[in-house]
Structure formats: structure tokens, C-alpha cells
């Protein structure tokens, strides 16, 4: 956890209440991840962010104590070619949601700091506009744990 986030937790009990609720009407649901497939490889996390407020919200500057780099990427498929595009800010529309799911938006977790094997609970955090940070965590699973394609049923 970064120092600012730690400070916010100290002075803002709301953040301590739960990992999925944050001020500003943000809720995180269905957050899950997959452990690296090979030593040194990336882990990945997917989640849905719900915005119950009347203002668009942007999440950015994703971090985790377990990984040196947490980056938001979009998988694109055009003309049969798959590409990844790094995205700096995740826009969650007012009264709407943003979905990170296989084949689309995903958090790429790189440069593991320690044990990130299957079963590891990985804390994640994102800056919430200018309003602080939202915290959540994912369990890093083995591929195939969520059904045949590894995606949503």
C-alpha cells in the first residue's frame, strides 16, 4: 500500500469498511485474476466497476504491493490481428459501469515482488479521480477455474 493510501486509510474509516465500496458511489464486483503461466510472466485481473454517482469517474494509477507494475490494457482484434493497447485512465460513466473481461480490458500485473502462485490473494488499488483511492483484491486462480474459456459464464 502506498504511503498516501495508508494515510487515507488512517484518516478515512470509510476506506477500512470494505474493499469494494468507496465514496463517490463506486463499487467493485466480480473481481478475479489468473496467476502467471510461466516464471516471470504476467498475471492478469478482471473486474467490474459500478458508478452509482451522477458524475463520470476515472480510475487511474493502478498499484499492487505484489507487483512492481500494474497496467490497464485493452485487447483489440481488428482484421484478425490481436493487439494490446495500454490505457492510462478507465472511464466509468455516471450511473454506469466499466467491465474488464477476457478478450477486452484487463489489468496486466508485471514484475512480481514475491509469491504470486495460484491461490495468492492480490491486493489492488486505483486512484479514483482526485478523490483518493479505491481498494479491492483478487485471488490469482489457475486457468480453467472459471469455466471452459476462462471468461464469464
Amino acid at each position: 500500500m502506498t504511503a498516501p493510501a495508508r494515510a487515507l486509510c488512517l484518516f478515512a474509516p470509510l476506506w477500512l469498511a470494505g474493499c469494494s465500496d468507496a465514496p463517490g458511489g463506486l463499487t467493485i464486483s466480480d473481481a478475479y485474476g489468473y496467476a502467471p503461466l510461466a516464471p516471470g510472466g504476467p498475471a492478469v485481473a478482471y473486474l467490474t466497476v459500478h458508478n452509482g454517482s451522477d458524475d463520470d469517474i476515472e480510475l487511474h494509477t493502478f498499484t499492487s504491493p505484489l507487483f512492481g507494475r500494474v497496467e490497464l490494457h485493452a485487447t483489440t482484434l481488428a482484421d484478425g490481428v490481436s493487439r494490446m493497447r495500454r490505457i492510462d485512465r478507465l472511464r466509468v460513466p455516471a450511473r454506469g459501469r466499466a467491465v474488464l473481461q477476457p478478450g477486452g480490458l484487463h489489468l496486466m500485473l508485471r514484475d512480481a515482488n514475491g509469491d504470486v502462485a495460484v491461490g495468492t490473494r492480490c491486493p489492488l488499488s486505483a486512484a479514483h479521480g482526485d478523490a483518493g483511492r479505491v481498494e479491492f483484491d483478487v485471488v490469482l486462480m489457475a486457468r480453467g477455474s472459471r469455466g471452459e474459456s476462462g471468461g464469464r459464464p
Partner: protein
Amino acid sequence: MQPTRLLILILAMLGAAGAGWLLASSIGREPALEKATVLPEPRPIAPFELRDERGEPFPSAALEGDWHLLFFGFANCPDICPITLQQLAEARRRLAERAAAEPPQILFISVDPERDSPAILAAYAAQFGSGVRAATAAPEALRRLAGELGIFFRVTPGNDAYDVSHSAAVLLLNRRGELHAVFGAPHSVDAFVHDLPIVMASR
């Protein structure tokens, strides 16, 4: 000939012609395929040599005798590559349960030999169960093979965290090691399970 008999004769001839047309058009008709595109004729591939997960040579001749599903990607791909391999592994598992015929082997070809060492490839392939192998080759050999198979890939230079764009198609090679059919992305386990028995039985 009386008009009535002439009419009957004409109708009979039309009927015979119609029946003949129906018969001709139904011969060779196969169930519709969901996603596979079968080549009009299987395309031979020039001999090539990969390096497998043990660091051993993997010649193209080793592909003969079995059907193979090929997918090109790289081990540092967090999303589309594992998803596709998981789909292929699941499809293979479902086809094996049917036990009608030996399901295709799956071969993951890394277009990132710089980072994907044999140890990495071995660990990667092992995540997807039996029937999945991984291999790579020197950049020039990869270019040749990919070009022959209509596969595009590009390594985007950068720092150590460079990205690779690549075709997401899955290629089906027949028992003679020829390119037989192509599955375009996005992929579906159901489509693989539906199409593969039809395609593999047709020749």
C-alpha cells in the same frame, strides 16, 4: 401425340429433371460449419524446424500422422493467448470424451523467441493439460513459416516490456502436415467442438 399425353410426357420429363437436380445437389453436401474455413485443397507447407519445450529440434515432419491445431502468440500475453489456448484445450477435452476419433494435438508457437525460452514454454504449455505443446524458432524461420500460413506478427520494440501483435487465427493441419482449415477469431469452444469432427471426417 394427343395434347394430354404430350402434357403428361412434358410434366414427367420436368419431374425427372427436377429429381435429378435435387439428387446431384445433395451429393457431397456436408453439415454447415460454424466458424471453420476449409481450404479448397489442403496446402503443403515447406519443411520447417522449430525448437520445442525441451530445447530440442521439432521438425515439421513430426507433425505428420496427427491433426494439429496451431496458434501463434507469446508467453507474456496475459489475455488473448491464454484464453485461446484454454478454449482449444477445453475443445480437445470435449472431443476426447466423444472418443469417436483422436482429437487434434495443440501446438502453441511463440513468436517471441527472445523471451520465451524452452523452460518458459514448458511451464506455459503445462498449464493447459495434455495434448498441448509449445515451440518457437529463430526470427527468420518464424517469418517464413508465418508467411506461408498467412499469419502476421510484429514485435513492437521498446523496453523490456515490449508487446507483440499477432494474428489470432487458429490453423488446422491435417495428418500430412498440410494446412487444411482456418478458424478466425473470436473463438468459441462450441464452434471448435462442432466443426472439427466434420472437417476431420471429410477427407
